């Protein structure tokens, strides 16, 4: 009879082997990428101007900024990355909340879905580069804190995947499990919390991962527009302007942006593992 111990608890038999199996692919991909970087430089004879040596990137990291008087570039990068991360986190949380709310509303009142969904979708076809300055300037005039406007731009990108994924998840319950709830005379609130929400979680986390990356992009674009000069957006802009004299700075800024995105994504993946890790398909 079907109690399968090996399926119940995978991966504990060889903890060292498992750890190795996880690290190995990541490490090899990094090695291959580094090899491609230096290899293409050798093969296509890219100048340092077009593609600096990896060693130059490392060296740049440990060079003090502001002509030798400021902190190390690495430190400055981390400070700015943290600033961007905070904005993105704010946008992510607000976007998730908004997505939740809209999905719940659309589930309850389908007329609203028909009426509002075109605008929700339309909102995502307008380039964020065009929206961001309007929001920043507009909110600045209203006297709102600059960070609030940036968070809003980030929210603008992150609420969409959450709305769509959540609504899809809330609807992805089998008719029979709804019949079952009906036979228990469960209220619609009970059906929501005990059935719809838990069964929506896998969908929700997929959307949250997309929203995590989107909110970082939103935060960076918002930083490009205006406000106090901090964050990776500003760093990318500065590095792009001074590319001719210091190419490594731009590469490092891009790398840092990628790192923030990956960190954010990993945090959501970790949360997913903690929340839905134990369950599988029925």
């Amino acid at each position, binding site marked *: 009879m079907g109690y399968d111990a090996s399926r119940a608890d995978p991966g504990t038999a060889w903890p060292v082997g498992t750890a190795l199996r996880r690290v190995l692919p990541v490490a090899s991909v990094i090695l291959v990428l580094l090899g491609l970087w230096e290899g293409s430089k050798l093969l296509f004879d890219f100048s340092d101007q077009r593609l600096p040596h990896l060693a130059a990137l490392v060296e740049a990291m440990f060079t003090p900024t502001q002509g030798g008087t400021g902190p190390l570039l690495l430190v400055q990068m981390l400070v700015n990355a943290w600033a961007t991360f905070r904005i993105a986190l704010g946008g992510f949380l607000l976007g998730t909340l908004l997505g939740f709310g809209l999905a719940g509303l659309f589930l309850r009142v389908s007329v609203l879905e028909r009426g509002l969904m075109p605008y929700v979708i339309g909102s995502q076809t307008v380039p964020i580069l065009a929206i961001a300055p309007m929001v920043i300037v507009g909110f600045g005039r209203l006297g709102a804190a600059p960070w609030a406007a940036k968070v809003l731009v980030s929210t603008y990108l992150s609420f969409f995947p959450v709305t769509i994924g959540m609504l899809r998840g809330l609807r992805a319950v089998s008719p029979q499990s709804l019949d079952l709830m009906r036979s228990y005379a469960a209220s619609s609130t009970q059906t929501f919390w005990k059935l719809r929400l838990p069964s929506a979680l896998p969908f929700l986390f997929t959307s949250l991962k997309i929203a995590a990356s989107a909110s970082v992009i939103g935060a960076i674009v918002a930083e490009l527009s205006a406000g106090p000069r901090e964050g990776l957006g500003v760093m990318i802009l500065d590095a792009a302007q001074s590319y001719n004299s210091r190419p490594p700075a731009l590469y490092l800024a891009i790398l840092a942006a990628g790192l923030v995105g990956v960190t954010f994504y990993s945090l959501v993946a970790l949360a997913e593992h903690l929340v839905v890790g134990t369950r599988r398909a*029925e």
Partner: protein
Amino acid sequence: MSIVPIIEFDRVSKIYPSGSGPITALHEVSLRIAAGEFIALIGPSGCGKTTLMRLIGDLEQPSAGTVRVKAKSPDQARRDRDYGIVFQSPVLYAWRTICKNVELPLELMGYPRQQRHERAMSLLRLVGLGDFSQAYPHQLSGGMQQRAAIARALSFAPSILLMDEPFGALDEITRERLQLELLSIWAESDPRPTVIFVTHSIPEAVFLADRVVVLSPRPGRVQRIIEVNLPRPRAFETREDPRFFTLLTEVRECLRAMEG
């Protein structure tokens, strides 16, 4: 029957709209079921046997005629939690342990934590899943999952058990064992729930039921009601009883007669 029926159909029809015109699933079905009876509903595919069960459970509304359950409307009976339902698939919630799945109806009905846990555990022991209460559904075989679904349906001691081909997806061996287990659980329950058991297996219907209701092909009507006078408790040997074979033949002939 002279006793007051617990379920009563009075010229009930069910018509579904469809692209190619309305489809009559049930046509003027009249039926009386006594409390504590074990009724098997059998008929060719699409004859409306599931529809009939769903009408009792207030999962569908009749197009004409009336259904009364315990002298109430099915809707009222549902609100009074008179129904335990078991479908062909177990419909266990993947994110809940087996024990928590069985507790679900009690949770919704506001039973205190301790009480519902004890109730769930005693039912799991009854269906032979006492050691698997903390397992998740995907860790159990199909037969064990269906046992859990039965335990869940019984958890709040409903007076009517609606079963829609509950063993239809199981292998023959598991199926026959679960039939026996179901009968013994049913016999030991006090008071005995009324069971409406939808099936397309003739031996299953005859083995389990007090009466087999044979439905005609669409539009579904009650073709015949066959009394099963086999003694209870029924056992593995019941299937070797000559009377068992006679009844099988009777049901089969009835089903075949309708084809021609």
